[in-house]
């Protein structure tokens, strides 16, 4: 299709080219408008992070005077930053992998293994989304973690984190597996494949689009979680990024705006780089779905 477009472009007059590509141009214009809406606030932060202090308190986008010292200020004042970042990456990574794994198993079982009581399980999962566990959850979770001896243990955060989005992850996998025809699973099983084999070789490849969604949902929550992380961990070195960052803009607000902006850029950039690599894996699944379908 792309090849054809190119030929067309080369061999016809401009007017015809515009006529042919009118929808494409409008489409890209609309897409880019959305992209601009997403990126503009962030570019404002980027500029803010290199403004001098007086300029940061003026509305003008472009500063009169640049000041690049805010980044070194951040590293000098949050000495644990590197360690906190590592903590965040480890906790988030483990949470995402485990939750996805559990959700795949449970979602698959609910749809294709039809256990006794599946409606009940489904209903409870769904209902749990609407209970304001927050009122006492923090205290209940504190007690539980204390019982397990996981207070002030960074990796201990993974346990409550898994649960943050477990219900919704299971529900997503359930609805994804519902799109896989039951006959396919049934016939594989009759052909002698084990339960695991069927899930791994038949079910999962068909459900990879859902995996992407579950991955992202869990990543976003675990990466930004603040309340549990600040309550359950005592040591500054053992804490995750959001807690350390909140300190920068909370309290007495001792951090000047451009410095908070610098923190911003420092936090978002590694995630962005990580994702520009990881997205290949993510979207490969999507692309394959497109080609094969």
């Amino acid at each position, binding site marked *: 299709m792309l090849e054809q477009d190119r030929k067309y472009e080369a061999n016809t007059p401009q007017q015809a080219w515009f006529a042919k590509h009118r929808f494409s141009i409008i489409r890209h214009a609309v897409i880019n408008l959305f992209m601009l809406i997403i990126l503009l606030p962030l570019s404002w932060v980027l500029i803010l992070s290199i403004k001098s*202090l*007086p300029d*940061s*308190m*003026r509305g003008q986008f472009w500063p009169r005077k640049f000041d690049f010292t805010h980044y070194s*200020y951040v590293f000098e*004042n949050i000495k644990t930053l590197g360690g906190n970042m590592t903590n965040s990456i480890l906790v988030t990574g*483990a949470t995402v992998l*485990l939750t996805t794994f559990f959700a795949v198993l449970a979602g698959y079982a609910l749809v294709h293994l039809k256990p006794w009581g599946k409606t009940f399980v489904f209903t409870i999962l769904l209902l749990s989304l609407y209970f304001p566990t927050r009122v006492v959850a*923090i*205290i209940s979770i*504190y*007690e539980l973690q*204390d*019982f*397990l*001896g*996981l*207070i*002030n*243990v*960074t*990796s*201990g955060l*993974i*346990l409550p984190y898994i649960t943050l989005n477990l219900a919704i992850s299971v529900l997503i996998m359930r609805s994804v597996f519902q799109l896989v025809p039951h006959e396919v699973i049934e016939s594989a099983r009759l052909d002698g494949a084990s339960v695991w084999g069927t899930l791994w070789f038949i079910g999962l490849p068909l459900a990879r689009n859902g995996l992407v969604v579950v991955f992202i949902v869990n990543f976003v929550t675990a990466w930004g979680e*603040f309340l549990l992380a*600040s*309550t*359950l*961990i*005592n*040591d*500054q070195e053992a804490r995750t990024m959001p*807690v350390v960052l*909140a*300190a920068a*803009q*909370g*309290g*007495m*607000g*001792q*951090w*000047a705006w451009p410095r908070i902006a610098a923190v911003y850029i420092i936090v978002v950039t590694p995630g962005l780089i990580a994702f520009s690599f990881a997205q290949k894996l993510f979207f490969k699944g999507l692309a394959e779905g497109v080609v094969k379908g």
Partner: protein
Amino acid sequence: MVERNEIELKLQEANRRQLLQGKIDRREFLSRSMVAGLGLAGVGVASKYGVGPAYAAEGRPLTPTFYDWIEGLHPGIPGVNERFPGINYQIAPVQGFGIERFVAESKKSDSTWDVYVGQTPFVEMTSLIEADVIEPWDNYIPADVIDDIIPSIREECSVNGKLYNWPFLLDVVGMGWHSGVTNKAGLVDSAPATWDEFLDGANTIKESGAAPFGATFDAHGWRSVAPLAHSRSSDVYTPEGLFDFTSDAAVEALVLMKKIMQTSNPDILLSGASDGGVNGTPDEVAFSTQRVGYYVKYFNAPLRMAQYWDDPKQLHMGPLPKFSGGEGSTVFWTTGCALFKHGQNKEKAAEYIKSLTYDRQIWKDSIAGTETAHVGQLPPYSSIYKEWGETKPDWMLPFVGLVRGQLDRAKAIDNHLFGLSQFQIGQPFWEAFLKGEESDPRVAMQNVTDAVRAEMNRG
């Protein structure tokens, strides 16, 4: 940092011994294998787990925990810590005044920490006492220290004659002005002595076009209604310790706020950001953008906002103006230290806090400012001011003396379980007057009292 690692090694060693001696009970074993079974925790967890109990037996190091901004504002603290080798210095899990963790531990007669630095009496001290989390300092604080605390501060920190808050950082509500703006408006470069002068000056600034706005304040009740009322009379508390919103002084304060608002930034009533609206308030932004001349708030705020100015030296500060014939008082509060009832090392904690609160470097940094922070928080001890009075340090700023003078008349907000929340509950009702929805200030203040009363009568 180095000491820190040594401690961790010691802890790990203690823990390992405990493991070898088979001191782990079944519950510990189960929970440990549960975690290990997940394949995540690994050696890290195994070595860290059990550290608490293991150390308790052998005695743990002094473990203070600080509200997170304190270290950022006072870079001298690590210097004090160096004098206490082995100290386990931590940042408290209390973002936004969350004391849940402290209370939950206390219910099990336990405390990870020995002392909490970051308690403000009228905000959370009563809660911590009610929940039986903290105990008074009286058995541990040296007598000469307790006598050295300025009387009004000692009163703030005491309940039934017992000192539950060892005061550390003093914040006083006063005023600051931008001399660049006031000079342009042709005003004399001194603090207005009365509210009438203040209002005249604010009007002049706005009308002369020196700045778009004349004056501003922080709309939170404990930073506006209360200090303004105190400047008329500090006798504005009911016998049970609630702020008396219907008192003449409080009503006059409200009327004054409305007058100031005529020259102020229009977003003045929009509360700000995190910490339940404590930071990034509209007044702070207006002052830091150099769009306003006069500013009423605790001194930390103008100092912090002036760092954004083209010339921070244009900031001047003085005491809160008076009502003509008024008492000339103001509001102050301290951020101090609470002693955990179930903590350990209590004598050591007292020694540490004494060292911390008398540290001259911290006070110099706070008043004169450092490269990273200019806080303007002041010491709570008479002896330090006396010392400065006898031999004035070259870094001393004039506002300190003015504040010290006013401190004998100043008063903290009374301690009460509703000390802070009475102002949160009441805000929409007095703002009805400020916004013009209610024309009678007395009716507005009566509504405030009724709302607070209704909330207290629940349950």
